């Protein structure tokens, strides 16, 4: 019996050691900032078009560095994969593509490094203001923006023509509401939008001037009932009550792309990165789509907001930070940015955005519209102050649980958002933040 006890004790001791080792592994490798002599292999996780071509260009320019690329699927999958690697204490790539909104949570836990030690802070004037502002945490850049992502308004002209709506005359959300009724009058599956996801919610509330989250170090204020949100909620509730939002299609699903292709989902309020997704995902809609500035809450204003957008960060686990930074700089700020833009990325550098040949490009998918001109104009519009929660992934996953039922008429949007605010506040408190839920 005594031996048996000893064996159990030994086992417990071993597991404790294993456990402690796993916890202690997150110590950061030394940061090497000598980019001029960078060499070796780096691992890069990301998604999207044009990456392979950009890597080819990079390796040609830097023959001493090889980039091992893994396509990690979607923004959410990539953040999950990084989360896993962080929990395991190893296995993270050197360079990681992240959705801008998830960057803060990886800064808070020390998983990505401050890029000002490589001199990235000097790029402040080279990038458009919107995307650059999102890279900063307490004044320091922790990532480099790949694209700018102002929220813009896409509409299917063929459907609008059928419904008797002039897309160019939609200037305010009230105009949008009138158009919504006409599109719905076509019957069947015709709706002006299906949009019931987290990102469009934040972007639209942001444009209304809402500030649902205020983050100041360890203090978080959640307010789902400020003036901007009240305006947003009243408008959305009107659309829901009058059956003007299609609750049966989820963004990014097969149904969604098909409905965009055949025009039954008539508009999209989404980030400026959408054109390539439309071209590849909804090829059937070629020639029918147009892009315009986002409808305004008040006539004559030029308020914008950001939706998504992605950036490159360097992980604290990276053992070759110099080469990693060199690649991140190349893709976002250097010659690689042009290659990315040529493959459909809507650029974040002012140089590319203001390039006349870029702006005057005529897009076949959009009926030879000068799409980039509209998007670049949107990118230069002002955005109000807005912050994401340091636990954005959690907020995104719980949005479906708490808020989406309101779009199915099971509860009101106001109640659903109150419930959502409570879920987020409880989680924040549980994670050690001081949260005030207003």
């Amino acid at each position, binding site marked *: 019996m005594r031996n048996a006890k000893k064996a159990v004790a030994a086992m417990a001791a071993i*597991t404790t050691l294993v456990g402690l080792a796993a916890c202690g592994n997150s110590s950061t490798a030394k940061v090497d900032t000598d980019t001029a002599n960078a060499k070796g292999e780096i691992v890069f996780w990301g998604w999207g078009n044009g990456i392979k071509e950009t890597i080819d260009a990079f390796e040609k320019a830097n023959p001493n560095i090889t980039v091992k690329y893994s396509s990690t699927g979607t923004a*959410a999958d990539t953040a999950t994969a990084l989360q896993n690697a962080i*929990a395991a204490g190893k296995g993270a790539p050197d360079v990681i593509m992240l959705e801008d909104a998830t960057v803060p949570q990886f800064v808070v836990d020390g998983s990505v490094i401050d890029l000002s030690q490589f001199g990235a802070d000097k790029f402040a004037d080279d990038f458009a203001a919107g995307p650059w502002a999102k890279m900063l945490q307490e004044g320091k850049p922790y990532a480099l923006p790949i694209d700018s992502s102002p929220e813009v308004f896409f509409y299917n002209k063929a459907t609008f023509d059928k419904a008797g709506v002039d897309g160019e005359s939609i200037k305010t959300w009230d105009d949008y509401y009138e158009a919504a009724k006409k599109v719905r009058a076509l019957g069947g599956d015709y709706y002006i939008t299906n949009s019931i996801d987290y990102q469009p919610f934040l972007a639209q509330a942001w444009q209304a001037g809402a500030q649902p989250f205020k983050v100041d170090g360890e203090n978080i204020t959640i307010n789902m009932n400020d003036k901007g949100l009240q305006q947003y909620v009243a408008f959305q509730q009107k659309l829901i009550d009058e059956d003007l939002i299609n609750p049966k299609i*989820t963004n*990014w699903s097969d149904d969604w792309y098909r409905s965009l292709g055949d025009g039954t989902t008539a508009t999209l309020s989404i980030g400026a990165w959408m054109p390539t997704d439309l071209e590849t995902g909804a090829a059937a809609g070629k020639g029918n789509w147009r892009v315009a500035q986002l409808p305004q809450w008040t006539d004559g204003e030029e308020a914008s907001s950001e939706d998504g957008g992605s950036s490159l960060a360097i992980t604290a686990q990276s053992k070759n930070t110099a080469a990693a930074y060199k690649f991140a700089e190349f893709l976002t700020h250097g010659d690689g940015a042009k290659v990315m833009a040529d493959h459909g990325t809507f650029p974040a550098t002012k140089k590319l955005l203001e390039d006349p040949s870029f702006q005057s490009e005529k897009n076949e998918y959009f009926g030879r519209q000068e799409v980039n001109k509209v998007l670049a104009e949107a990118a230069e519009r002002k955005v109000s102050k807005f912050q994401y929660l340091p636990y954005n*992934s959690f907020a995104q996953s719980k949005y479906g649980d708490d808020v989406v039922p309101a779009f199915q008429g099971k509860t009101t949007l106001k109640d659903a958002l109150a419930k959502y605010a409570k879920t987020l506040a409880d989680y924040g408190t549980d*994670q050690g933040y001081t949260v005030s839920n207003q």
Partner: protein
Amino acid sequence: MSPQIISAQPMISGKTATSSAISFKTINQHSKTARDNKHKADWRGWKFMWPFAAVFVFVFIIPIVYAVYISFFKKQMIGGTKFVGFDNYAKLMSDMQFWSSVGRVALFTVVQVPIMLFLAAAMALAIDSMKLHGTKFFRISTFLPYAVPAVVSTLIWGFMYGAKYGLVRSFNDLFGTNLDVMVPSVLLISIGNIVTWEFVGYNMLIFYSSLSTIPHSLYEAASIDGASEWQIVKSIKLPELKGSLAITVIFSIIGSFQLFNEPSILQNMVPGNAITTYYTPNMYAYNLSFSGNQSNYAAALAIVMAVITMAIAYAVQLNSMKEQMK
């Protein structure tokens, strides 16, 4: 581990020795070498055992102990990791989202498992009856879904279920109906249909193999007695199926409680996020660790679920053992 076994050995023989005088004598009469051989035999056994034992400890015992260990901690974004004792378990007991997910899989089990096993048994009896043509083809084709990865089969079914562009749409167009199998109220049934499709062939094969062990002489005896086909099924085949029924029930219960692949794939295909992040206990654990960064709490959840599942499986086993004793 091994010293424990050796020290236990004399204790056992000592006990038998004191319990009866006769056996005491017989043991005493054994030569000393015979006893030594017994010891050596134990060591030799462990020499064969250690590769398995080592792997078993590393892939089985240590992860479980580790999961139990981390379930006593809490990791926060602010404040780091600290020991919290049974806090995670206490929190879990009052977590309505957790219990709703348990309730959902329990309901799923109660409805889906009997239907699936009934179908499987009926198929096994049909194939075994020797009255069908093309039994080999039938056997392979019902088993085939089991060989398709769950992710792929869920995708296939998801596309078929689509009320906008899927097979359901075509069905609606053809018959003028307005079916939608992806609405939240019937979603669990739709998932049950996928799971049944996937596993009915597998269970059928277990039933069929136990039917094929019935000696032919029994059938001959039955036909000499003038038994009808139905009487043969009732008196010979069904009693034989009882034994394998316990196995299939336990496998199916464990499988249902671990439901994950099907709802998690369908989550992106079902309109309006009808599949919540806490749809099943496994999905809840997954979301807690990967979007919620709460792997300690998820570990506690995993352990509680393991205990619940084991308790149910054990109850089923006890019950079936009682049945067989009768």
